[in-house]
């Protein structure tokens, strides 16, 4: 392998491992009730956020969903503040007011996640409009799931971006399930073909980390250069339940061999095999994660007298 590849692989693995280990630790701690909000874990889908965000500059911004920890960390969001937010502490990224589903890190360019399906998508388009009005070279990437593709507002947003030529990349993390409901029963359209009618370029790939990395690189460059919107559908898979720390074994997948193949396609494990001396990376990250959880535990809760802070008419 060339030196470039090796550097890329290490960099990607660092981020993938950080996210995977953080999410697993969150799942481990969750039954102790120290985490004060519902959690929607990205385990199984990390390669989408990592592959896309690795191609973004600091001034580019991302918007996401309630399943947003992977995106938050992949874009460079502060780990300590994330865990503190989950613990409901004043040192959290939203000072404990948001919880797991509403996180933000402006400095890293993570402009917000939301609990309601589809709500951040038009906002992301608006942000792209602002970037264009300012003559900026930055772009917006908005992540959403197959559930959001059901919502009308997503089509309104993509259409607007297409007709006004806005610098935004729409990334669909298609894990086929909206809670327990499969896309087969919800969608008459094919997402990538629908998107192709709204925006200027639309592609569909698997969540293989290298495929994501290279395709995202091409589309991001396209969006930045042409100042027109593009769409990337990544077919991925969620390994935990929709909400909560438990594993989910998808009883509706009748072919159990198929399910085993899906589990084998775990991108974090796949990349690990390609890294020289992964334990070196892992021990550093393990320490970081441990520190973050300690930080969250030791932090203060918001003062009850501050209930009305940030609230005004």
């Amino acid at each position: 392998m060339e030196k470039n590849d090796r550097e890329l692989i290490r960099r990607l693995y660092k981020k993938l491992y950080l996210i995977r280990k953080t999410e697993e630790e969150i799942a481990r701690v969750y039954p102790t009730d120290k985490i004060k909000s519902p959690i929607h874990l990205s385990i199984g889908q990390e390669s989408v956020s990592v592959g896309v965000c690795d191609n973004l500059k600091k001034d580019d911004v991302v918007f996401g969903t309630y399943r947003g920890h992977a995106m938050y960390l992949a874009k460079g969001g502060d780990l300590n503040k994330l865990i503190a937010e989950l613990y409901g502490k004043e040192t959290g990224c939203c000072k404990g007011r948001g919880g797991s589903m509403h996180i933000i890190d402006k400095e890293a360019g993570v402009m917000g996640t939301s609990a309601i399906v589809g709500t951040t998508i038009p906002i992301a388009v608006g942000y792209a409009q602002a970037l264009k009005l300012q003559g900026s070279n930055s772009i917006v990437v908005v992540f959403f799931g197959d559930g959001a593709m059901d919502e009308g507002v997503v089509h309104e947003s993509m259409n607007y971006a297409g007709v006004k030529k806005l610098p935004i990349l729409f990334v669909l993390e298609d894990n086929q399930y909206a809670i327990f409901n499969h896309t087969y029963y919800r969608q008459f359209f094919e997402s990538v073909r629908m998107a192709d009618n709204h925006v200027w370029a639309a592609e569909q790939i698997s969540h293989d980390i290298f495929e994501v990395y290279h395709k995202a690189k091409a589309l991001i460059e396209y969006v930045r250069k042409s100042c027109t919107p593009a769409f990337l559908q990544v077919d991925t898979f969620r390994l935990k339940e929709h909400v909560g720390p438990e594993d989910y074994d998808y009883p509706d997948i009748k072919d159990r061999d198929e399910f085993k193949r899906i589990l084998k396609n775990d991108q974090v494990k796949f990349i690990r095999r390609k890294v020289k001396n992964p334990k070196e990376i892992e021990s550093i990250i393990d320490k970081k994660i441990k520190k973050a959880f300690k930080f969250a535990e030791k932090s203060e809760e918001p003062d009850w007298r501050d209930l009305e802070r940030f609230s005004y008419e």
Partner: protein
Amino acid sequence: MSRILSYGEAINEAIYQSMEDDNKIIVMGQGVNDPNTVLGTTKGLEQKFPGRCIDTPIAEDGMTGVAIGTALAGFKVIHTHIRMDFVLLCMNQIINMAAKMEYMYGGEVNVPIVIKSMIGKSWGQGPQHSQGLYSLFINIPGLRVVAPTTPYDAKGAMIAAIAHKGPVLFIEHRHLHYQKGFVPEKRYGIVPELRKLKEGSDVTLIGVSQMVVECFRAAKILEENGIKAEVIDPIYLSPLDYNNIYKSVKKTKKVIVVDCDWFASSVGADIISSLHESGLDFRSFKMGFAHTTCPTAPSLEKEFYPTAEKIAKEAFFMFEENLDKFKNVDIIREEIEYKGPF
């Protein structure tokens, strides 16, 4: 010092002057650049500030999100709707995002958007083109709601709304756009304080939006009946100037609130329940649209709305239960019967 502008022109001037001072202000909405220019309120904006007055597709939910996103990136956005009825399509973005983002993100962001729309009646608009709906928004924390009545207040309220850090619902009434009044040329804002249009000692009449005009006319009728009414325009519906309303009702001990909306869970309900909580001993009555869908046929439509005569009769009833003694007075109406364009 008698510079006269219409209500619509006053709003237009407020937006124009604000956009002149701050090039980070943009306007979005359906029909902003068409010949009607939203009853004159967006006139001349695209010509003077090209690229900053953006006509949008008919996708209210998405467009509200777009307005919020643009505001998030450092702009101030005025999102205009031709009717309040259409704002119902924006509820998710207004209530779940705009009203909450500053709070739920721990103060990291703020959403300076003005959502302006037109309410109220005119000839045969019917069920879906005549609603008030502002009562829904006064309930939500994080949303400011303002409904000016005079051209002076319209300009001041719009400048203040644009300058406000958070989201503002700016409510215009279709019958007010051609009403003229004194409007200074300078830039000025008005704060959340009510305006007392007429001093009186016998009964307090509080109106919302165009109903302030009806209350003012009712006061004239009541004068002929020997009753001195105090007429109040709260202007801001959220935050509401409870203090000064309390002072007035403490004096008169009688209050009628006339909403330009259905009166259940309305500004009237809010005011009257707050006055009760303050321990005042007083008599009250809520008025507003009849509690039905608005009909189109004129014989039904005229029953639907409060009028100056109806308000005056209710006030009179608080003093004299025998309505045969009520003297109705013909008030000259300079109202323009609005028949379009829509």
